[in-house]
């Protein structure tokens, strides 16, 4: 059996420098109500027949939640919007409606939930934005930070030694404390990377807010995205090791 993993199937692939909000308006204005065939001008409902409209397959998660493509989103606002849209789309409120409307509500609610889950966690949000902006469908591959490679190889050996050792022996105790120190060091490293990411997030938002279309801005944009990709992949790698370590010596 073969399958092609496709994690961002609802992704908007075409790049756009315009504000996502205005773009959605355009998308909606172009679409027709599935029920009465009149032009849909309302946000989620047809103005004429008041039927709920399906969220377009091209809608990205930022648009879906009504936020611009920024990386520093206010979690309170994000949550409030999620709750508001849940009240709009949740199947509970469509039980007395037609089967078609129920189907739309179900799939809209599912998209909304995925959108919120993706955007709520800053790291996942950044990974998603990266995929959106660089048009790559693939997940970001995790890779060890270059400068840590030697250290991580060594750590791997210690881990294996520890797993094979008698945990209660002197050797076991010694290895355990080595691993513990190592874990703490890696955790510090992880936090460092997260702080760097935070800075890049701020840079990104600033650049977007400025909204300049100069070649300088394009270079800056590419720099941020590239650094972000590297950092994200290193952070995930280190994070996995830290979790692994924590589980082993717990």
């Amino acid at each position: 059996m073969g399958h092609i993993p496709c994690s961002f199937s609802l992704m908007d692939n075409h790049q756009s420098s315009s504000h996502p909000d205005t773009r959605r308006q355009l998308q909606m204005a172009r679409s027709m109500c599935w029920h009465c065939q009149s032009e849909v001008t309302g946000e989620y409902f047809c103005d004429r027949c008041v039927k709920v409209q399906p969220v377009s397959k091209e809608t990205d998660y930022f648009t879906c939640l009504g936020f611009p493509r920024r990386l520093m989103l206010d979690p309170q606002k994000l949550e409030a919007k999620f709750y508001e849209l849940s009240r709009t789309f949740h199947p509970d409120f469509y039980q007395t409606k037609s089967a078609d409307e129920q189907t739309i509500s179900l799939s809209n609610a599912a998209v909304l939930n995925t959108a919120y889950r993706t955007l709520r966690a800053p790291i996942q949000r950044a990974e998603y934005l990266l995929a959106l902006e660089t048009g790559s469908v693939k997940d970001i591959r995790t890779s060890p930070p270059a400068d840590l490679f030697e250290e991580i190889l060594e750590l791997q050996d210690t881990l294996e030694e520890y797993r094979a050792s008698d945990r209660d022996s002197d050797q076991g105790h010694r290895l355990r404390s080595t691993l513990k120190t190592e874990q703490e060091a890696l955790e510090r490293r992880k936090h460092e990377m997260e702080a760097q990411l935070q800075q890049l997030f701020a840079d990104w938002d600033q650049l977007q807010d400025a909204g300049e279309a100069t070649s300088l801005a394009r270079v800056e944009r590419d720099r941020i995205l590239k650094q972000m990709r590297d950092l994200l992949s290193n952070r995930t790698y280190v994070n996995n090791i830290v979790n692994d370590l924590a589980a082993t010596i717990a």
Partner: protein
Amino acid sequence: MARIVGIDLGTTNSLVAYMKDGQPCVVPDRNGRTIVPSVVALTDNGLIVGDSAKEHLTRNPERTVYSVKRFMGKGLADVQNELAYFPYHVTETGGVIRIRLGQKSYSPPQVSAMILKELKLRAEASLGESITKAVITVPAYFNDSQRQATKDAGLIAGLEVLRIINEPTAASLAYGLQQKTQGTIAVYDFGGGTFDISILKLKDGIFEVLATSGDTHLGGDDLDRVLVDLFIGDIRDRYGIDVGRYPDHMQTVRLEAERAKIRLSDELKTEITIELPEDKGLFTRELTRDQLESLVVGIIERTLAPCRIALKDAGLTPTDIDEVVLVGGSTRMPLVRQRVEALFGKQPHCHLNPDEVVALGAAVQADILSGGTTDMLLLDVTPLSLGIETMGGVMSSLIRRNTTIPASAKEMFTTYVDGQTGVDIHILQGERELVKDNRSLARFRLKVPPLPAGIPRIEVTFLIDANGILNVTATDMRTGQSQSIEVKPSYGLSDTEVERMIEDSFKFAAEDVNARKLIEARLDAEALLKTTNKSLVDAGHLISQEEAHSIRATLAQLSNATGGTDPRAIRTRMTELEQTAKHLNVVMLDHSLKKSLQGKKVSEVS
């Protein structure tokens, strides 16, 4: 919209509730009892459910089914090691457990349907309208097969199951309605057969589940078993009798074990008395709360690991929890409360009726669905990760546990061999890496047009709906055509089998209704016979000989009729007796009135 009721289909006890003037309330029976024991017995007059069936546990153990919820959505292999505790006969056909009752076998959904029908009738009698729609609760940690089995039970009972909701979240709705609080709560639900923990955020009428965990095989039943083992060990040592060989006595032991456990929630010490088989007399012993606690502490501690996992998954620590809400009969145990308090570092909230709160919450959810309550919304999660089998027997996760539902995931499939016309897909649920350690949910074959390898692109959508039940659809990306998929459940009834059972249930409905009417008529007749006889004794001397004679004759006729199987005949004889004894009753009333007045005078004088 027709009324939707809320049903708590419990391992031990079931209840039905509805919304009345913005408040949920539980439907009582004629005697004011709100709880229907989840027991079904096959008697000579047909199937009976609830309190009357419970009496057959010791009289007729092989034909009395209890705790059937433990078998929902399971195969025989899943329950092998606890079968010895059940006196009824359990087998398996087509991956589904069957329970033998007399000449026939019933699947767990069919037995559950009998309980649901009883609740349906009860609601209909109380509300005076026909009930066809319901919200039914399940343990939060129930997997897809167990949920599906519950839905099937509803269908078989003639109920459209508009929603399956999780028991702890249902409880949170009732709690939220009552308390109007905001914040983060943990609902700890320890019932008869299952344990659930759910962590929720309550804010502006939204009930957002952050994480849930549990054990669908951990409850009061397991505590009872520890005591059963203790008692039968004791009896063996003292009398050399193996109670295990006497199913009726095993039930006596089990029921006494449960009663002792319950008494020890209020008392520090209790006396156990059990009648021994073969007229060997009575077994008695003392049991203290300390002894009970040291025996069951291990089981109770098993509830703590899921609590920690749920906290971790929610990204919270115990101090983040504003309130711990206790649900389920087993939370009445002081030791349980102590452990919960120790874990969360605060006294749990136990002002809700732990027996009723789940049904009340189901009624609230029913009201939301019918458009009555509009300010509350429950956002629940799927308790287990969903995935598919990939190369090498590994599970690849598509929807992680604790994902808000409805949730969907899309996966693209293609072929490896030229001209390949199908792709086999195996759906799993669970948290382990290897397929064999997870729960197999279903298999299906994706139809693919014969093309060179790698060319076909079939997108499969896995959608977990608001019931926590999986729906699968597929689209050929090249043609845009959607494809219907026939999913074969690994543990569960096929659609055709459910349909047949629904038909059967209608076919036998007439029979069942008759059996029920007969039982009710008999009970009523017995009550009437008793009071009339008493009146004759007390006031017989105040009426004429002939009158007394004709009353006796009618009494005999009624008592004859109760031996028959025609409920109408019994009712007719009852009316006749009521007519004949009318005068006697008037005289009787007069007589007792005078007597009480006399009594008063005497007391006033003295």
